[in-house]
């Protein structure tokens, strides 16, 4: 180490100066080159640095711009999307509003203004109903015509029957005056019936004008009605004759079969009324006067105490029109009706009198058995309850008389 140091130290002075000068020369000689090299180096370096910086600045600017523009774009897009969504929403709202309005307006106008399909359905219903009602009416019409025709037939048959009845000699002879009948009496009687007929006809004839007009078709029935109403009257009156004449004008001449003349309702009726069924069977004829006399001779009970059958027989006794007593009834049933009314007028009470075997009392133990003076158990269920319930007792005490067994026995005997 020391050696190396010494050598270095030895050579020190010379080498260093030489070296110094050599180096200075070299330096002087290559100064421009060095300078140029330095410039070149610096140029490159500086260029590189500046470029690198510019590069960096550019990159930064681009970055900034990129981010900004991205930001702007995103904002724009966002607004766009919002707007578009809003539009879509509004479109939806509008569509929904339209749907609501459509429905409501449709409903409203269908309800309050006009409903096409409802009307169509209604008209269809009406059509159907019209068809059914037409069918019904046609059926009704046919049925009514049928009934009308039948009625006419029946009426015509009845007329024929009655004519047949009139033709029978038995019925016919009732009008023939007896040998001893005096002439004036007959006249008076006939004219009386004429009055009856005339009254009837007048009531029938004086119809209001509008009723009259359709009478053409009824004319066949009219005389028949007249006759029916005066069936028990004498039939030889002038009115009847004229009505018959009218009928003969309207109707063709009748052919009445023989069997109809022999047996028909009118004849049967006449027989029933004037001859009686029993007499047909051959029972001996008895004058009613004799019957009454016979009844009066045996002392029968009177009034309501008569046996029921007898009572009924009296009440339903057929009417015997007489020439002496002036009566104002036509026939048996009317006379009976009048008689019934008269009887009802005479009645004291409305209650029906019935004869019963045994009287039922609501409280059988009310009447004391045996001794009338024995004690009564008051306060019991059916006895006295003091004076509080006066109405009740009043009702019960009305029948204080005991039921008399006599009536029951009498009823048994009857």
């Amino acid at each position, binding site marked *: 180490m020391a050696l190396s140091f010494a050598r270095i130290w030895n050579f020190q002075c010379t080498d260093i100066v030489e070296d110094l000068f050599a180096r200075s020369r070299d330096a002087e000689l290559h100064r421009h080159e060095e300078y140029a090299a330095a410039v070149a180096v610096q140029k490159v370096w500086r260029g590189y640095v500046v470029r690198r910086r510019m590069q960096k600045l550019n990159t930064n600017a681009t970055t900034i711009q990129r981010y900004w523009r991205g930001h702007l774009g995103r904002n724009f897009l966002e607004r766009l999307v919002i707007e578009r969504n809003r539009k879509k929403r509004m479109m939806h709202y509008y569509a929904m509003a339209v749907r609501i309005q459509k429905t409501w307006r449709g409903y409203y106008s269908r309800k309050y203004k006009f409903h096409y399909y409802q009307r169509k359905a209604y008209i269809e219903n*009406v059509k159907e109903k019209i068809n059914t009602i037409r069918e019904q*009416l046609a059926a009704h019409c046919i049925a009514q015509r049928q009934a009308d025709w039948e009625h006419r037939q029946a009426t015509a048959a009845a007329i024929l029957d009655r004519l047949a009845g009139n033709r029978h000699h038995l019925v016919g002879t009732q009008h023939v005056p007896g040998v001893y009948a005096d002439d004036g009496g007959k006249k008076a009687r006939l004219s*009386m019936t*004429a009055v009856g007929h005339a*009254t009837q006809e007048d*009531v029938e004839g004086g119809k209001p004008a509008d009723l009259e007009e359709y009478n053409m078709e009824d004319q066949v029935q009219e005389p028949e009605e007249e006759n029916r109403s005066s069936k028990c009257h004498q039939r030889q009156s002038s009115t009847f004759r004229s009505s018959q004449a009218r009928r003969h004008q309207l109707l063709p001449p009748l052919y009445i079969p023989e069997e109809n003349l022999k047996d028909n309702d009118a004849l049967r009726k006449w027989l029933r009324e004037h001859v009686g069924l029993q007499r047909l069977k051959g029972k001996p004829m008895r004058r009613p006067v004799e019957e009454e006399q016979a009844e009066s001779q045996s002392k029968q009970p009177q009034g309501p105490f008569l046996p029921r059958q007898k009572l009924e027989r009296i009440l339903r006794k057929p009417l015997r029109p007489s020439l002496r007593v002036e009566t104002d009834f036509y026939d048996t049933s009317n006379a009976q009706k009048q008689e019934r*009314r008269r009887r009802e007028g005479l009645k004291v009470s409305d209650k029906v009198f019935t004869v019963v075997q045994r009287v039922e009392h609501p409280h059988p133990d009310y009447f004391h058995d045996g001794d009338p003076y024995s004690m009564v158990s008051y306060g019991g269920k059916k006895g006295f309850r003091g004076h509080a319930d006066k109405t009740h007792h009043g009702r019960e005490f009305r029948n204080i008389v005991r039921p008399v067994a006599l009536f029951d026995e009498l009823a048994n005997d009857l």
Partner: protein
Amino acid sequence: MAASPTAANTRAVFAVFEKYQKERLMFVQTVADLASRESNIDALQAAGVMSLLRPLLLDNVPAIQQAAALALGRLANYNEEMAQAVVDSDILPQLVYSLSEQNRFYKKAAAFVLRAVAKHSPELAQSVIDSGALTALISCLEEFDPGVKESAAWALGYIARHNGDLSQAVVDAGAVPLLVLCVQEPELSLRRIAASALSDIAKHSPELAQAVVDANTVPIIVPLLANPDAKLRRQVCSALAQIAKHTVDLAETVVDGEIFPNALNCLKDVDGYVKKNAATLICEIAKHTPELAQLIVNSGGIAAVVDYVNETRGNARLPGIMTLGYVAAFSETLALAVIVAKGVPPLTQALTVENEEHIKAACAWSLGQIGRHSPDHAKTLSDHAVLPKLLKILTSSNAGSSPSNDEGSSGPGADLKTKTKRALKCILEKTLSIDALDPLLQPHSTPPNILKYVVGQFAKILPHDVAARRAFVTSGGLQRVQEIANIYAGTAPGVPGTLAQQQALERGSVTVQQGANALTGTKMGEYIRTINECYPEEIVRYYSPGYSTTLLEKIDEYSRQQDFAGGSGHIQQQPFSRLSSAGEQVPPQLQPQGITA
């Protein structure tokens, strides 16, 4: 020994009295018989029958009394004069007194006299009431005998039928409940008469009808609509109609009584009067409200009514026709129901076939009511050729009654004319089919008051329908419109766009310049203008009457102009030239017109 001469004396005396009684009876019966023939009445009156009958009314033999009453009734029944004579001879109080005393035959005869007197006039009926007959008649209604009740009800009905006051008097006397009881009796004739009396009472005013309804009449008489007796059905239908006709409430009461299937059956009855009264009933119900009309339609009544109109002839048709009109008037749907029920053909048939004017008027009215709702309805009517028929009636009645109409507007056809015109107007205003309108567009046969509506309809259709415009031209309608414009504008036509107007302007008449002529300002002018605006001017000109003469004039002018041009050598240009009429100076050159032949 002494007894026999006394008995003989008694017998002799009795014989005299008996003879006298017989003679009286014979006299009074003969009078009654004579009184039944009209030809004898004058002679009887001349013989002083009234004064002879009066004491016989007070005879002590009931038969004589009855016969006297009967004779009196027949006399009074004959005419008003005789009835007045009965009233004047103070017979009524006797009758009324004996109404409550005597037997039922006499009551019947007495009620007959009262009825015969009351039937003639309100005054006579009033005099019957004044004699105190009402209470007596009403006590007769409480009688057992149906014949007495019947004649009493009949007399009451005749009293009530004259006017509201008399009817009110009958109601005040308490007749209605008893009449309602009578309707429930078994005797048919009594029921008929009682129903008829109720009808007579109810027909005058709503109050009286209400009084009848208050007696619970409706539920009792409605079932009788199905009664086998036709005359009873008649009266029941009539009573229900008289009740229903007054107010809505009463009509509803009637309907609530469930009249429906039966009332419709009555429309098909064998009896003509039942039919007519049932139709009146339906009509009276239908006229009140749309609801009631709809009820009738819903129950199928409309078909029954249409069938009724189809089947009947003459006056009986009227209620059916009116029913159809009333129903159709209420709403479009109901009118459609009438159409569906085939209601139009019978109405049309009645319109042409029937002779009486009021029926025709009713038909026209009903048809108008059917057609006025919508174009569909109007189309149906025009399919049935209703319009020409209505027009025919209108024009024929015009021809028939216009001379009398000049003297007074109440000519025979005045009502029919107005009804027909209104119906035509209603239908025309809804008609939108060219085919239906075209036959009516006749300038000469159609009267102007109808033409107005026809042209108006075209003015409504043409601006909106291109195909119709073409059809309108090819069918010659446009030409007829121009003719109409020409006819009704007279000498001073004012419808713009027509040749006539231009010619008039040419002539420079003062009226045109003032705008005053027959068509300016009128609806017809408006309509024609609207129609003309739908077409090019050339077409309008071409179809204007007198266009050919104009063309010929043009030819003349042209040749003259050629001559003039050749003579003078220079052509004078004028900014505007007009068609010339004969008196004016010839313009040198013809301005080219819109259409060139």
